[in-house]
């Protein structure tokens, strides 16, 4: 029997707010343990949670960025369970009335067709503390770090629309791009600001059954999510074929062994409306105000880049996946650089050079205005491409303008025909065989001769003019 998978994702995204969700403590979980705590996030008697406006705004922007519909009324519930990482016996989470419903992301599936993957709802919740397990001599002890307790999170719960690991990975990549572009989170699985759980079940292909699902956790990269889903599909298929029943449980992905392993039975505590945190009521006016704060979303930006600057769809997609890179490109074009030149030099030269130096585009001192000066000299034939690459390398090490670097280091392109003529005469005298080849119609000798003249000029000659002069002399 052939099986197909039914996959849904639950994605926790940590909002990059300055404070925690219900108090003014800094939202910096990585600091020295238990530094960022107060009576509220430690739930001391008498403390009252104060819901953060910033968390509401960042969460709302995230929802709008994913095409979700903000709900006029949402509320926090108490998710009740007892665990030392939870300082009050319940987690504040929106179980009954989530912040938004609907939304989704369109991806391109394996067959190249567009596919809409829908979001069921997005709700806010607070993060829990971090447990560290150690040995004190032979006694196992558990230490609690409350820095993370109360950090603002949203949970994005998708519809079970996914059928393949590929779709899940494409969705996560697109989600990361969109959330980054609204500025609500870094969405890095690497450092835990995005955590993904996958619910997977299988069914005979072509049926619309919904079978018992298994939840898989502990994937810390998009690739791991794909691998874990692929493993789980084949594990469940083999089990069903062997006549076993799939049980509802949670499994952990083991990235070393590349397998999923069963963990504790899933416990779902009750969710009771919280009487202390007020109901959140959003007016249509407020929602519209938030919408105006929404930057251009990647898909719309890609479309515009194609229409406005004549980029290919792939190029536009690449640029729009990073708002900073796209912004850089548009600034170059705004400085009068041809879109093709800007695209080519940004992606093949500047970005690799920045990466090689372990810098950030915004953190390097090659700002768009400075880079545009260099590209303008290239376009005006004042320097050639070789020289431009070398000038760029110098620009990383000094604050001098590209013009100064070109003049001071003699990168200016040699275009005057008298100087070039002399060089050509010398090369022709030295390479009689190549000259003979060219005259007998062997075109590739031309390239060789141009190269020789370039070398003789120390790389500064204008190759276009060399070609013209050589043609005149020899053909």
């Amino acid at each position, binding site marked *: 029997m052939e099986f197909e998978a039914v996959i849904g994702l639950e994605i926790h995204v940590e909002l990059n707010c300055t404070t925690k969700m219900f108090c003014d403590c800094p939202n910096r979980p990585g600091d020295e343990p238990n530094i960022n705590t107060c009576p509220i996030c430690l739930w001391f008697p008498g403390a009252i949670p104060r819901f953060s406006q910033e968390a509401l705004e960042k969460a709302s922007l995230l929802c709008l960025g994913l095409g979700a519909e903000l709900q006029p009324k949402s509320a926090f519930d108490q998710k009740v369970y*007892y665990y*030392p990482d939870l300082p009050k016996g319940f987690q504040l989470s929106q179980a009954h009335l989530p912040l938004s419903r609907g939304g989704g992301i369109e991806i391109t599936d394996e067959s190249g067709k567009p596919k809409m993957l829908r979001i069921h709802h997005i709700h806010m919740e607070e993060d829990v503390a971090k447990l560290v397990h150690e040995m004190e001599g032979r006694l196992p002890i558990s230490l609690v770090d409350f820095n993370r307790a109360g950090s603002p999170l949203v949970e994005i719960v998708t519809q079970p629309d996914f059928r393949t690991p590929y779709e899940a990975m494409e969705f996560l990549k697109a989600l990361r791009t969109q959330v980054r572009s609204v500025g609500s989170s870094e969405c890095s699985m690497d450092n835990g600001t995005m955590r993904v759980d996958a619910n997977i079940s299988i069914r005979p292909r072509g049926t619309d059954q919904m079978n018992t699902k298994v939840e898989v956790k502990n994937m810390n990269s998009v690739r791991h999510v794909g691998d874990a889903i692929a493993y789980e599909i084949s594990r469940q298929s083999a089990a069903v074929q062997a006549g076993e029943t799939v049980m509802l449980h949670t499994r952990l992905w083991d990235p070393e062994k590349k397998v999923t392993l069963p963990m504790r039975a899933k416990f779902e505590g009750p969710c009771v409306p*919280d009487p202390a945190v007020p109901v959140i009521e959003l007016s249509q006016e407020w929602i519209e105000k938030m919408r105006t704060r929404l930057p251009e979303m990647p898909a719309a930006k890609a479309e515009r880049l194609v229409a406005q600057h004549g980029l290919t769809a792939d190029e536009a997609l690449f640029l729009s996946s990073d708002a900073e890179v796209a912004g850089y490109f548009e600034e170059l074009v705004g400085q009068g650089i041809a879109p093709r030149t800007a695209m080519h030099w940004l992606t093949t030269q500047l970005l690799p050079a920045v990466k090689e130096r372990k810098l950030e585009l915004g953190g390097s001192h090659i700002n768009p205005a400075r880079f545009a000066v260099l590209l303008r000299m290239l376009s005006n034939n004042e320097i050639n491409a070789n020289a431009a690459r070398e000038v760029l390398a110098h620009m990383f090490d000094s604050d001098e303008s590209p013009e100064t670097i070109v003049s001071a280091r003699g990168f200016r392109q040699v275009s005057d025909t008298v100087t070039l003529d002399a060089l050509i005469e010398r090369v022709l005298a030295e390479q009689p065989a190549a000259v003979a080849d060219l005259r007998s119609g062997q075109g590739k000798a031309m390239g060789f001769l141009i190269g020789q003249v370039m070398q003789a000029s120390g790389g500064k000659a204008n190759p276009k003019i060399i070609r013209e002069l050589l043609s005149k002399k020899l053909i």
Partner: protein
Amino acid sequence: MMDKAFIYRNPGADNGAGPLKGLKVAIQPNISKEGWPTEAGSNALVNFKALEDATIVRRLQGAGAYICGSTRMSEFGFGLEGSSAGESVQHNDADAELVLDLMGECRLAAGRASACGFKPSYGLISRLGLVGLIPSMECYGMLSGNIKNIRDMLKAVAGPDEMDFSLPDEKTPDFSAHKIDPKKNTIGLITEAQASLPAGREKTFRAAVEELKKAGFTVREMSMPDFPLFSLVHMIVGSVEASSCAGRYDSVRYGRRAAGAKNWNDMYLLSRGAAFGLLLKSYLIQGAFFQFDRYEAFENACRIRARLIKEIQHLASQAEFLAFPMDSYDSTGAPASLAGTYAQFSSTIIANITGQPALYLPPVSGTAQTGFQLAGPRLSDGRLLALGEHILNARRGGK
């Protein structure tokens, strides 16, 4: 032996200034005053000292009141077992007391002390610094020999607090003394509220109603068939909230951790087992039962609560105020049971469910009068206190 009523006395002098200058106010140890023992009558908070002043304490002191001490209280203020509420006022050790009113404790304590007991409208006073148990029901109650003290305190403490987001966003009403014209005020009686009264008590309440009529008020008998549901709703919603609220007493960050636990689940069981007394423990277990096993019953109770509030609002369109009989608090000395506790508070619990203000008026001493409760619509606190003053004056023979 000096302090039967107090567990702690303010070691500092009274040098307040302001409208409440000279007013001695006793608080309970579930109300935070920096550095004071704040154990809320529970082993769960043994040796706990408040880190900062509650908003209500800050505002009382800001208005010149002197917080004279902290009284003995029942565990987390639930019921009156072991509580000395009312005693400091009765013995003139304080001019007023703050007594947390979760199901009527302040009003019943006032009955015991022959004082006035007031439960304000829900949401008028910041809860910051209150070690609470049932957030959606409980209010700071005010107990004093006269209504003026209550009015003055209410004026000083009510109103928005930027530290308490849970306060409803509404205009704080005017609490100044009003003149009450009996001819323009109807007082309603809920038939079902008297149905369960023992014969003797029914007679004394009837006598109090006759006094109201004599004072010129129109008295109107009204039916509310859902009345018996008030206690049930409180029992379910209150216990669920209490179970959540007490979840924090896990011995991880404060409180006393029981020795000998093999793992952390064990630690929870042992520490929480030792933290709570019998009455509270049975209440918390009841709440956990509704949370985990009968969630639909909890949801129904919330729906019925909303309906009860609507029905009471509807009655308000027929009568400006309501009058209720009130049981007296009888301690038998036997450990309190949940059912027994709820039975004692069955006539006061209404105001905690609906969030409306309620006032217990004591009899004038040396008379055959009985005390009773008055209630008004939410935020009618100023007028309710004026009504209370009017009736007390009438009872004393003045006009």
